[in-house]
């Protein structure tokens, strides 16, 4: 891979460090994170490479990479990192920045966001079909309705002010 100095955005690392509250720069590229990553065994996520590119300032490449969405936020890498880098916090910062830069996140996130505005939860309660092919709902199980914000309008308006409304639409 050829890296051109014109591709480097040198303030990217400051932006990410500030957002994640983490000293990303202390990474010395040992690769323990990639070695412990349970997702990377199956997906395109190479944790060490994401951190390296972030430090270098390859902003566009990192933020448009599907790999940043393939982290499970399981904290295994963070727990093992000899430099104490909070990699999941870095990944979450990168995702937030990607969305801010106009990248479209995996659709499920947008659906969950919309549902919180409408229902208060990322998904409304579902009917289940059991292993014996019987259908049950909260009502048929005599369970009370799910707790919801008392005033959904006030709740949604406040939630919208966080910037979420602009991202998920509706």
């Amino acid at each position, binding site marked *: 891979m050829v890296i051109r100095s014109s591709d480097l955005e040198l303030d990217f690392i400051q932006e990410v460090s500030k957002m994640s509250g983490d000293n990303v720069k202390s990474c010395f590229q040992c690769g323990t994170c990639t070695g412990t990553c349970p997702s990377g065994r199956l997906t395109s996520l190479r944790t060490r490479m994401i951190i390296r590119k972030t430090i270098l300032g390859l902003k566009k490449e990192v933020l448009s990479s599907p790999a940043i969405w393939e982290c499970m936020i399981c904290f295994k890498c963070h727990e093992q990192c000899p430099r104490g880098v909070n990699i999941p916090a870095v990944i979450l910062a990168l995702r937030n920045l990607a969305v801010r830069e106009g990248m479209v996140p995996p659709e499920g996130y947008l659906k969950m*966001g919309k549902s919180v505005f409408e229902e208060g939860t990322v998904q409304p309660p579902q009917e289940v079909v059991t292993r014996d092919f019987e259908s049950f709902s909260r009502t048929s199980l005599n369970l009370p309705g799910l707790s919801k914000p008392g*005033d959904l309008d006030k709740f949604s308006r406040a939630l919208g002010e966080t910037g979420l409304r602009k991202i998920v639409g509706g």
Partner: protein
Amino acid sequence: MLPRLDVDLVEIKGAACCGFPLSSINNLSWIYLTARNLALCEDQRLDMLPLCNGCHLSMCEVKQTLQANTALKEKINGLLASEDLRYDGTTRVRHIIEVLHDDVGPERIRKSINKRMADLKFAAHYGCHALRPSELGRPDDSRNPRKLENLIGALGARWDIYPERLDCCGAGIAVSAGESSLKIAGAKLEKLKAAGFDGLVTTCPFCMRMYDARQEAIGALLGGATSFPVFYYTQLLGLCMGLDEASLGLHLNMSPVDDVVQKFHAKTA
């Protein structure tokens, strides 16, 4: 189960999502949603018991974040004001494993049951966020947890340490990489089956969903019938207290739990 162990449960009035999945697309919305639930508990002057590991981590992390950042705390309070709520950060957040192990205790559980799970061997699955990140103070040790095993042992059942014990259920990428997520969950179930365990035990509903409710999808993807019983710890506890299967929701488990339940009844008959 908890009221039977003298733990009173009160519903949080007006609760909504903790927002954890939304921290990926808008960090502030997550902090607002989590702080809102904490503020509702403050209003009712109650400890909070989030059942899901992800919710529990959210509550603990946001509490720490807002304690360290007064400006952000006031911003959140500005948003909460429209619902007449205020966040001060006084709610104590408890984990179900802490309540069962540290408050009630294995000894009390041992005395509260009238049937024992002899001859059944279970694998404990804590779930990532019950253990990590350790610096935030999690319910058990991040590298060598033992509380869930102690709780299983209190029922008279056997347990064992297994190599995949601290591994993720895969739910974290269900949205972005569905197939990989199922493969990660499936790999653990296959290993446990091969290792001779009778079932997997967890307390987290998110992990439960992956291992139990998604088991059919896992089987379809892996090209074989992955079939392995998965239980909530409280379901096993209820069986040992002599409660009937329907009241424990055992008919709602999607994994094949019947054989284990029958074995249990055969031994205790």
